[in-house]
């Protein structure tokens, strides 16, 4: 029984959780506070990965991230390596795929923020940066935590997108869901069962944590 795929999944989930606030926070603030033309268009673009079949999204990413694609070509010029079939590649795909799952809770918690708080802060002489760290962040911590943990669980179980761009390389892109799928196809039901059983308690714990956070918020 090889546990590498599970560790790889955990690594992918961890990095996705760590990096996604950097990508999602500006977009969430833009959607929460921005007044501009094309806002609903941007909203739709960000939410699209949530409703598209993962295999369709995965195929799109495979083309974009391949050496002939925009992202893949740029990556190859910069690093000399290939973006698809690498850990960086599945991480990139995971970030895109998880974006709406992070943006939506963040946006909701930002919209709940009382604008008078920010106005008072400005009157009392706080710089925008100070008011971000002393007002926005503490007030949105719940939303941020919920988003991160949701994204963690979500990338732990991600299958379709990674199937398309990963190439199932052991230790690099062969995550747990792929390994389970392959075990089932190879009629190794025992291995598939063991790996699934390892995933279930982790996902269950994650859901319990989300419930706790939500209960505290309301």
């Amino acid at each position: 029984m090889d546990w590498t795929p599970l560790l790889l999944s955990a690594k992918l989930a961890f990095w996705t959780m760590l990096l996604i606030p950097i990508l999602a926070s500006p977009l969430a603030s833009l959607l929460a506070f921005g007044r501009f033309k094309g806002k609903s268009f941007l909203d739709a673009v960000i939410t699209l990965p949530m409703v598209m079949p993962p295999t369709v999204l995965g195929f799109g990413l495979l083309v974009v991230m391949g050496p002939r694609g925009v992202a893949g070509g740029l990556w190859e010029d910069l690093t000399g390596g290939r973006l698809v079939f690498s850990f960086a590649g599945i991480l990139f795909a995971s970030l895109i795929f998880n974006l709406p799952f992070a943006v939506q809770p963040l946006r909701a918690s930002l919209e709940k923020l009382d604008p008078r708080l920010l106005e008072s802060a400005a009157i009392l002489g706080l710089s925008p940066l100070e008011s971000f760290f002393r007002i926005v962040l503490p007030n949105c911590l719940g939303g941020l935590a919920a988003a991160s943990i949701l994204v963690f669980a979500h990338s732990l179980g991600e299958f379709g997108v990674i199937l398309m761009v990963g190439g199932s390389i052991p230790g690099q892109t062969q995550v747990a869901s792929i390994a389970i799928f392959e075990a089932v196809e190879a009629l190794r039901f025992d291995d598939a069962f063991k790996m699934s059983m390892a995933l279930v308690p982790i996902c269950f714990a994650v859901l319990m944590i989300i419930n706790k956070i939500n209960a505290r918020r309301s």
Partner: protein
Amino acid sequence: MKRICAFILVLALMLPAGAFAADLFIAQAANFTPVMKEIIPAFEKATGLTVQATYASTGKLYGQIISDAPFDVFLAADQKRPDKLFADGLSQKPFVYAKGQVVLWSRDKALCAEDWKAGVMNPSAKKVAIANTETAPYGTSAMNAMKAAGIWDKAQSKLVFGQSISQVFQFASTGAADAGLCAYSSVFTEEGKKGCFVVVDQAPPVIQAACILKSAPNPEGAARFVEFLSTPEVQALKLKYGYK
């Protein structure tokens, strides 16, 4: 309003009838799709029976069959799964219906200039796609060829694995991988014609077996289909797509 309701009702009644009206249901391994698309109309014309085929990976179809999917005939990409169905008493005796061949396919014509080994080992082939060596028969065959040629270990770092032979072709045709160890039949598709190929002569032929399922809703139709598979007409079609 009434008219719209009636229209929707008629449509709703028609759709399932249209979609499930076939006399014969066939579970077909994906690599044989191009040939099957020609065999089915010929069979329908010859017998008047209508056929509906599901194209998926052998493993997936096997899973559906042992979960009582209502197929009449199972055309696999290997011998293992039909044999297992027979051993478990779920099918009639399996028979070989086609022998496939592995080719090295690439969009980059330079990779087909010499033999397949040179193509795989060429430094400009940074990533080479191969089907899962455990579950996909074409993957197993390609692996055996690389082992026989003594390049299996050397090529490890450039290999990427597709779940099925169709995914291998998808990796290669989108350019995500520089080349792929594909099924000969994919060379004849629209995308396949845009690239080049060399036959992997060291790869053992992929022996594809089929069987009539014990639970077949239409056993007579299934028998007629199996009979049809050995006609000269089908032989010619198989040859046309690189099968023996």
